[in-house]
């Protein structure tokens, strides 16, 4: 469990999302929730379950499989002053929304010179493991980070999930809210009352002096496990969670990297033109001191389903720790932590199938 606070109860990521949604819908009549399956018995893995009973089918409703038009509907409703939350059970489906997101949601406030704003939230879940495969596993946040006018957040724990969703709903801009399936049943201390987590403020999750490791979305969890393995070898890693990717708190990361002299960015995505590339470039542009920088992410391939290949596709605590070790001790022999000891909580808990 990684908790930014010790206030509140221990709550799972999925329940934190549900709680934020309910609180915001109670607070503001203009907030509504829609997307395929948000009102069914499973309620997006539980993150929307029961909301239709409390708020009714005008405010919580499923949609036809028309992602393009439904995104336009969200934009139009937002222009009329409502606050839609549009849910996609896999981020891959956002590809059907790109015209609306990029040409309209992102641009309308600017293109129409402030006559309208587009306060909408797009929740998009990334899948992983148990054969999610090529089109149920993609972290596509980098595509959206490229476009001025969109905010992109990727909370890695239950506390940030609740606070960021609240902030996103109250924000007057389109916010892409990146979730990860494997984070859903992780837990953290979460205050019961409503609260916001500010965008553009990175969180230093572990302090250290030898290397700065940045982990995006669920890679933060993997980085934390790697940090523990490194600590046993006497290497002190500072671990930073950017929390929001746009706006990005590059200053916190730069200050840390300038101090440790080593920066490893681990993204839950491909590295090419990705968030990791942006973070490294942003740090390099802002620092005068010599810096060793490396990136890790998906293998430069499509995600395969068979576990043998899929395991190889993702960074994991072992590969992250090995990379960091080699950066800190470039002349030492290669070090290979025990894979059994590198296992994460979800790997012990999750049995599949989805």
């Amino acid at each position, binding site marked *: 469990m990684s908790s930014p606070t010790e206030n509140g109860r221990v709550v799972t990521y999925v329940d934190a999302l549900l709680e934020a949604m309910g609180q915001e819908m109670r607070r503001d009549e203009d907030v509504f929730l829609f997307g395929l399956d948000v009102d069914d018995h499973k309620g997006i893995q539980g993150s929307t379950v029961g909301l239709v009973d409390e708020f009714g089918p005008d405010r919580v409703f499923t949609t*036809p499989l*028309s992602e393009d*038009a439904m995104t336009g*509907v*969200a934009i139009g409703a*937002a222009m009329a002053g409502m606050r839609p939350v549009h849910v996609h059970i896999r981020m891959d489906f956002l590809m059907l929304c790109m015209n609306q997101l990029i040409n309209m949601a992102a641009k309308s406030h600017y293109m129409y*010179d402030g*006559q*309208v704003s587009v306060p909408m939230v797009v929740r998009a879940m990334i899948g992983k493991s148990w054969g999610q495969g090529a089109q149920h596993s993609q972290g596509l946040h980098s595509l959206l980070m490229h476009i001025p006018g969109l905010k992109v957040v990727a909370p890695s724990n239950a506390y940030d999930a609740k606070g960021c969703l609240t902030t996103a709903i109250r924000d007057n801009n389109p916010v892409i809210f990146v979730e990860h399936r494997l984070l859903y049943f992780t837990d953290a201390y979460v205050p019961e009352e409503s609260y916001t987590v500010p965008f553009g403020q990175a969180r230093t999750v572990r302090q250290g002096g030898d290397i700065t490791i940045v982990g995006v979305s669920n890679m933060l969890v993997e980085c934390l496990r790697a940090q523990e393995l490194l600590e046993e070898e006497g290497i002190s890693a500072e671990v930073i969670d950017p929390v929001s990717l746009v706006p990005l708190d590059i200053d916190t990361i730069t200050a840390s990297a300038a101090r440790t002299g080593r920066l490893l960015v681990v993204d839950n995505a491909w590295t090419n033109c990705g968030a990791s590339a942006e973070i490294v470039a942003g740090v390099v542009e802002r620092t005068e001191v010599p810096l060793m920088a490396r990136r890790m992410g998906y293998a430069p391939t499509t995600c395969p389903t068979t576990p043998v290949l899929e395991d190889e596709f993702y960074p994991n605590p072992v590969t992250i720790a090995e990379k960091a070790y080699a950066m800190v001790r470039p002349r030492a022999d290669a070090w290979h932590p025990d894979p059994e000891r590198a296992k994460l909580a979800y790997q012990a808990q999750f049995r599949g199938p989805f």
Partner: protein
Amino acid sequence: MTNNFDNEGDMTARLYRSLQLVRRAEEVIADIYPSDKIKSPVHLSIGQEAVAVGICDALRADDVVSGTYRSHASYIAKGGDLNAMFAELYGKATGCAGGKAGSMHLIDMGNNVMGSSAVVGTTVPIALGYALAIKRRQEDRIVVTFFGDGATEEGVFHESLNFAALKQLPVLFVCENNQYAIHQPLAKRWATDRICERVETYDIPTARFPDSNVESIRNHAHDAIKGIRAGGGPSFMECVTYRWREHVGPGEDYDAGYRRQSDLKNWRDKDEVARLGNALDDGMRARIDAEVELEIAAAVDFAEQSPFPPIEELHSHVVAD
């Protein structure tokens, strides 16, 4: 400024005034265009005015219209600010979007003209979203979404029809079928020309106007809107019309060979602007014409005299506060 929402008085005079304002505004744009003062590609509606004018005459001021990149006509007919439109074409700070939108993205929320888009079909679901908000708030306003024949080929158009019918949204779909997508005729794009039949399968009532007679469009819209306002769900109109000028720009392009001069002649012979003007007595027509010219001249003057936006404006409104 013209006022099409005071649906009192002589309908012919009212419709003519609006038709003439749209026609003359665009002719003036075409005249100015070679001077390079207008720094924005223009897609003129000359020849198609009856569609926007007929529909907008049936609307209330608080009803909403949503258009396309060819939306000078719907913007003007709905009562959009003419000064702000000309200033926008000139790229001036006083433009309807401060010079950031140009001709293809006109907007005037004060007069309930939603922003238009350069990407075909894109604004159709956005109009639905606005209508969804209206319905949720139990208002009796309606939204008109104007789009061309090309937009009906986009998947999002069919997604939108289905959703509007499913949710019984207060939307009037208006297809301005000018028969060409850039230079491509319907015959090269549509398996059949029975667009109304396609729409009816969603249980949306339809009507087709083969000559875009302005009174027929206006009267049908008036009745259809009554039903939509009362909660009867969406309605669809196909208005067949003809773009006299080239797809983009001020000129004619009949020498390019993709359409015939004789087609233009057929449509010119049934020009609604001329027909309604001829139906008025000479004094009335002359008075309206003079008013229209003054209004356009004032808008051009306003645009010419207005300043360009300050450089800092580049960075304003990237994100909303």
